[in-house]
């Protein structure tokens, strides 16, 4: 739904209201989303709005009356309007690239410039793609650090641990996830749950990776 986000920038104040109102509707209605996408795809490809019979084909509807009803609905949401002959005029139908190109002359849209410096969630959470692994948390030893059983942690193997990092490590043959603390020359692995005791490696400590982020999906 990328094109919807961009609309906020190109819409005037009063349309913005319509848009917000519409957003509530559209967000809850998958079917409408799909249909709007179909029409806007058509618009992008052919450079004009579809006729009623073409909409019928797009939506796989035989009856023009059903098309008429849908168009009425879309008209109310401010996505399109009809001219005096009943043909469709796009208002907010345009997609991403189109919107940027049809801004009134003389005023370049800020959108294009602004969007250059955005990153995806993937880029935010993953620094080195080739060295990143997922892990499902089973224990609660980092409960107070906000890592709970069932959480998904993103582990980066390319990082070297520094003081305060959460690490996945093998201590004397046992695997654990703890906070990496340096005290002088020795290393201590700290839990974040009073039920557990800090671990001081006796013989061997092998750090398998550093936790870069934690993901908890609720829905």
């Amino acid at each position, binding site marked *: 739904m990328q094109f919807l986000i961009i609309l906020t920038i190109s819409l005037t104040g009063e349309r913005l209201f319509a848009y917000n109102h519409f957003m509530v509707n559209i967000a809850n209605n998958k079917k409408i989303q799909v249909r709007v996408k179909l029409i806007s795809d058509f618009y992008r490809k052919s450079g004009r709005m579809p006729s009623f019979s073409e909409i019928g084909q797009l939506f796989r509807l035989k009856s023009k009356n059903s098309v008429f009803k849908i168009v009425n609905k879309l008209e109310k949401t401010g996505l399109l309007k009809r001219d005096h002959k009943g043909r469709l005029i796009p208002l907010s139908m345009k997609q991403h690239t189109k919107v940027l190109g049809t801004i009134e002359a003389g005023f370049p849209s800020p959108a294009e410039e602004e969007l250059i410096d955005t990153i995806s969630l993937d880029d935010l959470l993953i620094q080195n793609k080739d060295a990143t692994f*997922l892990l499902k948390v089973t224990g609660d*030893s980092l409960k107070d650090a906000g890592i709970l059983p069932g959480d998904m942690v993103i582990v980066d193997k390319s990082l070297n641990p520094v003081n305060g990092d959460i690490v996945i490590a093998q201590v004397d043959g046992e695997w654990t996830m703890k906070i990496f603390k340096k005290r002088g020359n020795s290393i201590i692995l700290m839990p974040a749950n009073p039920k557990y005791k800090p671990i001081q490696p006796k013989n061997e400590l092998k750090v398998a990776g550093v936790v870069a982020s934690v993901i908890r*999906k609720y829905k």
Partner: protein
Amino acid sequence: MSYQPPLTIDQWPRAIMHVDADAFFTSCEQAIHPELKGKPVIAGKERGIVAAASYEAKKRGIERGMRLFEVKKLCPDAILLPSDYETYSLFSVRMFDIMRRFSPQVEEYSIDEAFIDITGMRRYFHSSYGEIAGRIQKTIEKELDITVSVGVSLSKVLSKIASKHRKPNGLIIIAGREIHTYLSELPVEKVWGIGANTSAFLKKFGIYTALEYARKDEGFIKRYLSKPYLEIWHELNGRSVYPVITEPKDDYKSISKTKTFTPPSSDEGFIFAQLSKNLENACIKARRYNLCANKVIIFLRTQEYKDTGIEIRLNRPTAYPLELFDLLRDGFKKVYNSRALYRATGIVLSGLKLDNNIQYSLFDDTVKIVKMNRIYSVIDELSDRFGKHTIHHASSLPVKIQAQHEGERGDTPYRKNSLFKGENKRQRIHMPVLNIKV
């Protein structure tokens, strides 16, 4: 004594590196299940044979292709795992990505092997070719937790000899002036591209080692052998002729689809259904690359690993199973023996042509062909959206009579059974999962 040209080259006209992962499938398993490190691990449980064995298992005498009951006798404490191709593929892609950080010229030779052209990279990295190779090797080990064997030399054939020289985790550099020392100990049949028949032929001329082959004069090679062997001869002499090909493979000479099922079966309906599914799969792949086949080869493999097959020639290339089912059934009847127990079926499509220049004959029903084209493009679209075989032919239905593999439930890879919220059987996050209890 005849004159022996010295095999010494002082410079590096080309620097080719060969990377070969050590026991790749099982190394991946040990990387995501670190508790399995140092233990004999075997992948291929779902097929009933060893698909890959860790070095610990190889030391106990386990080889690829061995059946699992033999494994249990040899090494009762072996850990058998179902193959997890999704994870192996993810590791493979990452391994190639890491190599591309060092040089853009990477040839993905197979899932666990690659050639890298690092010619001219010395100045950029301020280090020798050997040091660059060492850094690639170490980065792969640190980031993926698997080891690879690396060879660097003047040509592809030589670099492959180098990487094989010391496995696992080896790093061998064959510089121009050392070529002869490596070739003198190497039997000629161990050279990439020289098979059993050629080496037997060469022995008639007293050529036993790679060095003896490399030292023959060009006239001899040209007179008795064909062009590929001349190329190998150049490569062994340190003159690179095989380029490092960076484009992914997109043209196929043939497409084959084989499927093994355990336990073996003699049920006619079931075996034909397997074959029918093979055909559907092969055609899906052909259509993905816009290809049509001229020839269809059917084969059935018995429990004793004997293959019987038949080749069907078509009067017009096609990639639509519907047009092929009648022929498939006829061919199947010819090769099927009701007393045999079969363990695998397979289909090979060959004589592949691009589907945009097919000559129809006067008697072809073009209306029907156009219809078929429409049906299959819808089927392919549905498969894209909802998963392979969302719509399939009824003749493939009987594959469900028996699970593909006995005890199938326990034999699916761990990754497919432990899903995160939001993942499903078909789509999972594009990232390997560490199986560590923390």
